[in-house]
């Protein structure tokens, strides 16, 4: 009975995904497929003003230039990377101006937002009445805060659909209409996040040569094997340091998914599952820390791991990277690209080293972790809202900008999105044998693409550049210039992850359509409290663990966590959250 039910869901999921990918292949006809819930806003009456032209053709064909020059400001993340041009003034910002702005009588101004300080910059801009026309962020609580504070205006999705039908249709296809509202009013449109429930671009590598030395011909596929292998590695003295890296939880992300019941209780999930605030007092977190403590006491982790919190990139620290490069540790993971400097450095320093991709099943231990469960990313990329100060024309121009980026053609007849992500043929990219563009990452002329193929401009339509099929996409981010070729391994890894996702073992955190005020108040304090507690709990003796956990959990609840879960529970009971996919 239970099995059938799972199968049915898996089937439904796959078919939903297929529909999504089909329509992504350039289906430009007017949307009629309204199977998902309709937008909750009441249709507004000023439809006539909002549609750009007198004729009622939706989308780009119906647009006419504005009678008067319209000025819009668009945020763009500033990552301060070496060798890139200024994010707010470069070849591509000018290109947008000539290709889009001049055509429709719009001034497009880009506003640099420092990536490390997004909220501070936005808040300052809002305070100075300089709110950009478009506000966007990856994190829901942030945009929810802007919306509740009055920095964003309520929008009419029907009008949006009229100006930007392709964009709207994508939202429908990706089941995103559930996320457009906060406090009962519509504020957001959302960009696409392809393959959101498989984090295939993050790959963990393990030392296959060490495994062979301790008698394994395969990567450990269960916790028992994993434990055995690590302990044997320590015994054999293959490293003079602790063999495994351990990160301080620098974001609230608790990797307790595997330790949760399946299916998890929805109310508990709504109360505790969060990227914003760690859940120290929740049972799965207890289980997770308990295992971590046992591992620490077996000598798996460095005694000073908490000092290495200077996460160089992603959620790993530069010390972990260094240790791996120097051949001191068993595993290291990070996001992949064609050029991964630490992999190159690893093989340079360890000419005989052999790596393999870690198994997702290395955590499985019957009774504790029955099968791997993953956190699926949000089913959307950017959450996009519009300034409360923007005029009707400005909002319309912003919508046109988004639709143009997604579905427009440039003056050469090429797709705008394609040009923005690949640049100019023969200059910034060449077409490969498979017909896919190959971007020249070393090109430094004026036409060079900004960080990660202009992702900080194109993120308004999708979170990830997609080249052809998933296999081709993976091939494009497989590390090059190293002795081993991981293309097939990475593709296999993707299918393992997909299997987990298809079995509904990967799900997202809840999203609240009301602002959780106590969370804004306490989350940063709780994060540092959790960091302190987790270090203490990891490093204590196993026999002391339970007593310390009780004490820390109590302190944690009193420090504001109780208030947060109460408020979340109330929101859940009032129906102001998303639901688990299987409910």
């Amino acid at each position: 009975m239970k099995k059938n039910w799972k199968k049915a869901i898996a089937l439904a999921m796959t078919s939903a995904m297929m529909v999504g990918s089909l329509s992504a292949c350039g289906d430009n006809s007017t949307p009629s497929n309204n199977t998902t819930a309709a937008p909750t806003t009441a249709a507004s009456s000023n439809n006539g003003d909002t549609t750009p032209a007198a004729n009622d053709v939706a989308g780009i064909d119906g647009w006419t230039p504005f009678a008067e020059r319209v000025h819009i400001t668009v945020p763009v993340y500033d990552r301060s990377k070496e060798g890139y041009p200024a994010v707010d003034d470069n070849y591509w910002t000018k290109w947008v101006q000539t290709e889009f702005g001049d055509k429709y009588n719009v001034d497009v101004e880009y506003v640099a937002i420092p990536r490390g300080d997004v909220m501070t910059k936005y808040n300052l801009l809002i305070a100075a009445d300089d709110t950009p026309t478009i506000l966007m962020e990856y994190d829901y609580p942030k945009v929810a805060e802007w919306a509740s504070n009055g920095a964003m205006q309520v929008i009419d999705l029907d009008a949006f659909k009229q100006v930007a039908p392709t964009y709207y249709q994508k939202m429908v296809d990706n089941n995103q209409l559930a996320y457009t509202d906060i406090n009962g009013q519509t504020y957001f449109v959302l960009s696409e996040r392809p393959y959101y429930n498989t984090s295939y671009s993050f790959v963990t590598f393990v030392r296959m040569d060490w495994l062979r030395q301790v008698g394994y011909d395969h990567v450990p596929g269960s916790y028992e094997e994993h434990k055995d292998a690590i302990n044997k590695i320590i015994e054999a003295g293959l490293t003079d340091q602790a063999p495994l890296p351990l990160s301080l939880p620098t974001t609230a992300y608790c990797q307790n998914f595997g330790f949760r019941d399946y299916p998890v209780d929805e109310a508990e999930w709504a109360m505790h599952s969060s990227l914003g605030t760690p859940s120290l007092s929740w049972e799965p977190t207890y289980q997770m820390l308990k295992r971590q403590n046992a591992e620490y006491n077996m000598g798996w982790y460095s005694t000073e791991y908490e000092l290495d919190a200077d996460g160089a990139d992603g959620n790993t620290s530069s010390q972990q990277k260094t240790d791996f490069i120097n051949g001191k540790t068993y595993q290291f993971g990070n996001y992949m690209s064609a050029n991964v400097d630490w992999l190159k450095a690893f093989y340079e320093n360890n000419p005989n080293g052999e790596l393999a991709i870690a198994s997702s099943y290395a955590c499985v231990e019957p009774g504790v972790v029955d099968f791997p469960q993953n956190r699926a990313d949000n089913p959307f990329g950017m959450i996009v809202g519009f300034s409360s100060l923007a005029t009707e024309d400005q909002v319309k121009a912003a919508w046109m900008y988004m639709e143009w980026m997604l579905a427009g053609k440039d003056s050469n007849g090429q797709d705008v999105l394609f040009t923005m992500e690949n640049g100019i043929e023969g200059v910034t990219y060449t077409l490969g044998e498979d017909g896919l563009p190959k971007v020249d990452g070393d090109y430094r002329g004026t036409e060079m693409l900004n960080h990660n193929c202009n992702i900080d401009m194109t993120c308004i339509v999708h979170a990830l550049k997609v080249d052809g099929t998933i296999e081709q996409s993976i091939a494009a981010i497989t590390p090059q210039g190293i002795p081993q070729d991981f293309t097939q391994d990475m593709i296999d890894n993707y299918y393992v992850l997909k299997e987990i996702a298809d079995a509904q073992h990967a799900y997202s955190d809840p999203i609240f359509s009301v602002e959780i005020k106590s969370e804004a108040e306490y989350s940063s304090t709780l994060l540092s409290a959790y960091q302190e507690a987790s270090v203490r709990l990891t490093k204590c003796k196993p026999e002391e663990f339970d007593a310390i956990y009780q004490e820390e959990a109590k302190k944690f609840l009193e420090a504001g966590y109780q208030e947060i879960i109460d408020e979340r529970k109330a929101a859940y009971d009032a129906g102001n959250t998303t639901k688990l996919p299987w409910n």
Partner: protein
Amino acid sequence: MAKKNISEEDSRFEGIHGVHKIKIGDILIMAVLVLLCLTCVMPFVHLLAKSLSSNTAVLSKSVYFWPKGFNISAYRSLFLDGQMTHAMIYSVELTIIFTVLGMIVCTCAAYPLSKKRLKGRGVISILLMLTMYFSAGLIPSYLLMKQLNLLNTMWVLILPLIFSPYNMLIMKSFFQSSIPDSLEESAFLDGATNFKILFRIVLPLSKPIIATLSLFYAVGRWNSYADAKYYITRKALQPIQYLLSNMVKSAADSATSLSEAAQVTSTPEVYQAAAVMFATIPIMCIYPFLQKYFVKGVMVGAVKG
């Protein structure tokens, strides 16, 4: 022991301004200072060595005080990086304008206030000095700059800071303690105006303090970037220290990539080290030009009431 007695005897007769002869005390002092100097130089040597090493060597943290896999590619790409060179030129401009204007305003305040005869001196002093301890805070100041239409202009990095009570105090006491009143009195009797006295007599005698305060102003402007962080959004108007801090910070930032779940590469450490050297060396270069005023021993201006 015996030697020490003799040297003490010597000093009794010669004093420190006497014949040059090394004594235990001198050696001790020199040793302490050399040690301190070593600790000061070390970070620079370390950064320099890093900036001249290969990225692999730096990633494996095997570079200490001598480059490994010597190459200058980091510096080469630094000079080819349009943003960096632009910010450098801009920062130099900014610092020069700031220093010149700052010195003018500082003199305008310090000279009149150094005259005890000036009516209303007390009130004006308090008015000017209060700002040193009582600040409106970041957000009200930010909103004020917005009202004044200074956000996103070069002037927002200059005007709010050109009056420094601290520097003014130093200059004022220099005027009071080292420009003899008699000089001024006789000029007065000759019919010179206040302006004439300032430009013809006081300023030419004040080169040392002008040099010192210019250094304070210039270094202060060069090193600070917090105001740019809040007041400036346009990349073209950001000073080099701000770019640098962003670069180092974004390399150390971990909280960003989780919600993005995309490949986020950071600036290689080699390049960061080179950028630090690049941003630090120009401001250190002005020091030797001013140093002659420090060592000549004419610097009399010390803070006094």
